[in-house]
């Protein structure tokens, strides 16, 4: 893959947004989008964890799994790396930045099960990115995810639930809003092609 990391970063935000075109991280996206503040908190945590775990998993894959010939264990190893990193981060923040822990800490356990984190690690292996590309892709995907959840939270705040048909309330209307947002993001596609 000879795409510059810079292009990849922007592409991950707009043309192939992790949520709106690759459908990753939907569970926490739907459940945490009720309030703007928590959406912002979770999104920030996702950006940070995504960037670091993409780098960590790249190093682990190329310097541990490939030399030892145990590439088939990549799923288990990636999950362990992600879970361990999130746990470590939680301890670190709690110890050194208690104020940050109260705003961000509650979202950290949610991140381990966020499929966007794991998905980005798998994408970077399948598409054979180098280290710099992986980090750029991770950071871009995180920002793209934050963008999507902020937009949904903003729209849902303005939404009058009473006017929505009863069967569509909650998840249904969120999916429709997401669909319209995805339709908007289709407009970006074709600027760069990364897959």
């Amino acid at each position, binding site marked *: 893959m000879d795409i510059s990391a810079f292009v990849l970063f922007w592409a991950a935000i707009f043309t192939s947004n992790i949520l709106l075109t*690759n459908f990753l991280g939907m569970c926490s996206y739907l459940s945490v989008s009720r309030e703007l503040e928590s959406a912002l908190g979770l999104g920030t945590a996702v950006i940070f964890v995504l960037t670091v775990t993409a780098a960590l998993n790249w190093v682990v894959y190329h310097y541990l799994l490939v030399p030892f010939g145990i590439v088939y264990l990549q799923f288990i190893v990636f999950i362990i790396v992600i879970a361990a990193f999130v746990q470590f981060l939680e301890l670190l923040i709690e110890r050194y930045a208690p104020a940050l822990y109260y705003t961000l800490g509650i979202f950290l356990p949610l991140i381990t099960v966020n499929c966007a984190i794991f*998905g980005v690690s798998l994408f970077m292996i399948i598409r054979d990115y180098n280290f710099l590309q992986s980090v750029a892709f991770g950071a871009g995907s995180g920002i793209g995810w934050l963008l999507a959840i902020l937009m949904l939270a903003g729209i849902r705040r303005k939404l009058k639930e009473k006017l929505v048909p009863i*069967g*569509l309330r909650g998840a*249904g209307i969120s999916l429709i809003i997401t669909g319209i947002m995805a339709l908007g993001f289709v407009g970006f596609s074709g600027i760069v092609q990364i897959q």
Partner: protein
Amino acid sequence: MTKKEIFLTAAFKENSIWRQILGICSALAVTNLMMNSLIMGLGVIFSLALANFSISIIRFWTPRSVRMMVQTLIIAAYVIIVDIFLKANMPEISKQLGPYVGLIITNCILMGRAEAFASQNNPLDSMVDGIGAGVGYTLVLLVISFFRELFGFGSVFGIKVFGAWWTNWSIMVMAPSAFFLLAILIWIINTHYYKVKA
């Protein structure tokens, strides 16, 4: 509960996708073709049933504090089997599904069933519950992919059903249609559910 009741509850009454809105990442991503959805569904049924079975067997010896980690590792082991099997026998489909096979591990349905059912019930019941939840999931995938493939490619399971006069709706192949179709499906089922309740 009898085995049949467990199966029906898991597959329809408590269907993970439309009742609990779990595991919709893959429900949206692999539904562009019916064949992909079917293979994905079978993969989920396999790993869900066996993971539930294994988690239930060791439920008395698993310390509570590391429960989640143990469950995730068991699930991951079965998903790796599915992935290796697909790579060896259906390389074409494995390539199209891409990372979504591996993403079965973080599919909330598996963790959800492990927590809600397998950690409290006996192995055989858990396996039936796993198969039920998997079948319910597969059905939703097949319904969505039926419409997406029919309108997007004019075919069903790769067999052309519309003649040369048919113009493919390219929107159906793209991401937004998956969101709309799933929303409509949830709408129809919820409306029916509220009507029955009232």
